[in-house]
């Protein structure tokens, strides 16, 4: 039966008019994804600050309810923009250097798939069916998940945020660009760099299942 759930923008507008239940719906929709996004952006070193950043992000939403207007960007994009800003603030407060230029370590040459990428071991991993029927496959993917988090922490923040928004939160690339407040091509380049590095990182440390299972 088709449901006519109000859009995020409509809920936010209702909350701005004083409807607290609209906020509850918004929160229920986005709390899990946003929490994961904040937690993964902060990394293991600042895991303890996840709650603080997460709460601060939502309080910004509360405070800005009367000023908010859907101007080209969806509520979700705006929400992740707020969270991204809060994460940057937290990283700076903790004394970490936050690179604005995502390609500071990559030189000026655009990314091209290397031989290591094209023949990477990850290409021989189990098919990502989404439902690991085999216990061995499930164990493999859990190890892959652990490794991916470790590889993520090696990425510069801009590339990490682009990858997470695109792959985990399901934002389209133009929404990623909007959330990160960069141009489309910049977001695209960041994403490609992130994917390349993650593939390399994963392939170098995780043996294909066909070769004897995960290490």
């Amino acid at each position, binding site marked *: 039966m088709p449901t006519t759930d109000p859009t995020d923008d409509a809920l936010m507008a209702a909350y701005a008019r*004083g409807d607290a239940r609209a*906020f509850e719906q918004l929160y229920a929709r986005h709390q899990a994804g946003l929490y994961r996004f904040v937690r993964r952006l902060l990394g293991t070193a600042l895991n303890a600050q996840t*709650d603080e950043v997460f709460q601060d992000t939502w*309080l910004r939403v509360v405070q800005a309810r009367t000023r908010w207007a859907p101007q080209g960007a969806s509520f979700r994009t705006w929400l992740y923009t707020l969270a991204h800003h809060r994460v940057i603030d937290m990283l700076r407060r903790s004394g970490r250097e936050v690179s604005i230029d995502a390609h500071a370590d990559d030189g000026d040459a655009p990314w091209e798939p290397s031989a290591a990428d094209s023949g990477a071991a990850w290409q021989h991993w189990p098919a*990502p069916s989404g439902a690991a029927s085999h216990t061995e496959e499930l164990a493999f993917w859990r190890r892959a*998940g652990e490794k991916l988090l470790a590889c993520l922490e090696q990425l510069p923040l801009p590339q990490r945020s682009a990858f997470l928004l695109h792959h985990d939160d399901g934002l389209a690339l133009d929404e990623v660009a909007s959330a990160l407040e960069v141009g*489309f091509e910049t977001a*695209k380049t960041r994403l490609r760099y992130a994917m390349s590095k*993650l593939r390399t990182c994963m392939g170098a440390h995780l043996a294909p299942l066909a070769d004897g299972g995960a290490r």
Partner: protein
Amino acid sequence: MTTPHDDPARDAWLSEALRHAPDADAAPSAELSDAILRQARQAVKAPPAREPARANPLAQLWAWLARPPVAAGFATVMVATLVGVMWWDRPLDDALPRSDTPAATRTADPPVAPPPPVAAAPARAPEEPQAFEPERKKESANTAAAPAPKGDRARERATERRAPAAVTDASHARSDDAAAPPPAAAAATTPPAPAAAPAPTGEIAAPSAAAPARDEALRQGSGSAPARTLAKSAPAAATAGGLALRAQDSGTPLLTIDEPRRWSWQRDAAMRAMTPALQRWLVQLDRAVRWRPADSPPPAAGPHAMLQLWRDGVPRATMTLGDDAVWLTPADGAPMMAPLAPAAAASLKATLITATP
């Protein structure tokens, strides 16, 4: 919008790994969620106290004005308005510092700009003097000497505002640059400095042709500029033509001194050749007065300064400088007169005596 081609496909293996990451099921604690939701509810309950203020336009206006950027902008506009009102319709020269120091005693010598090209362009050799022609004046005024009509308008305004046209005020108003020091003021209040007087050609600067050079010099000069400027600009403009005294309304030339070498003057004693000092005095007089048909004849006797002007030994005009007016009686025309403020008349008289020793 992103096209499927532009949007890189999600890496299925990386996405799968993300789904199986240890923190895939991470979520905020119930306490944290409760705290956030509680604050969100309180936020929408609290505002009623602010509603009345928001509804009151005056309070809204006051709150808007109290914002620093708005307040700063408003203050700037107020100050600008106040200054504008204070200076409204007020001659700028009144606000400039005046100096009583004679021009010749000034030590600071401000740079005097060379005459503008257009003023020098029509210059002719002294050996080929040309009569002052209205057409040339118009042409010159339409090019670089364009301020001339403006100066005339300013002069008219100044005359209307101050019926007894003082020499200084009228001179100021005639300048196209209102901020420039008055050229005639210093000359009227102080005798012309002999050292500053030399005009090598002995010819006088035509008002129309000399105006650009003089005004340019005035713009760059300081308080001592007028006398010096006149003296310095005279040689350059002397070859451009002569001096013409004109009637106020019709613009008819009353007296045209086209070739100063052929002119001479006589005041009390014998006839003497035209001098640059007298030429400057005539320029000063022309700037200070507006001629009109005389409604009374010039006084025949009394403490008046009389000046006869001759051309080639033939009397051409007589000037009579009274206490409150000046008369010009051309040899071949009707007598003209121009009212003068007593102070201006005295000043002109003193300058005339100095110029015609």
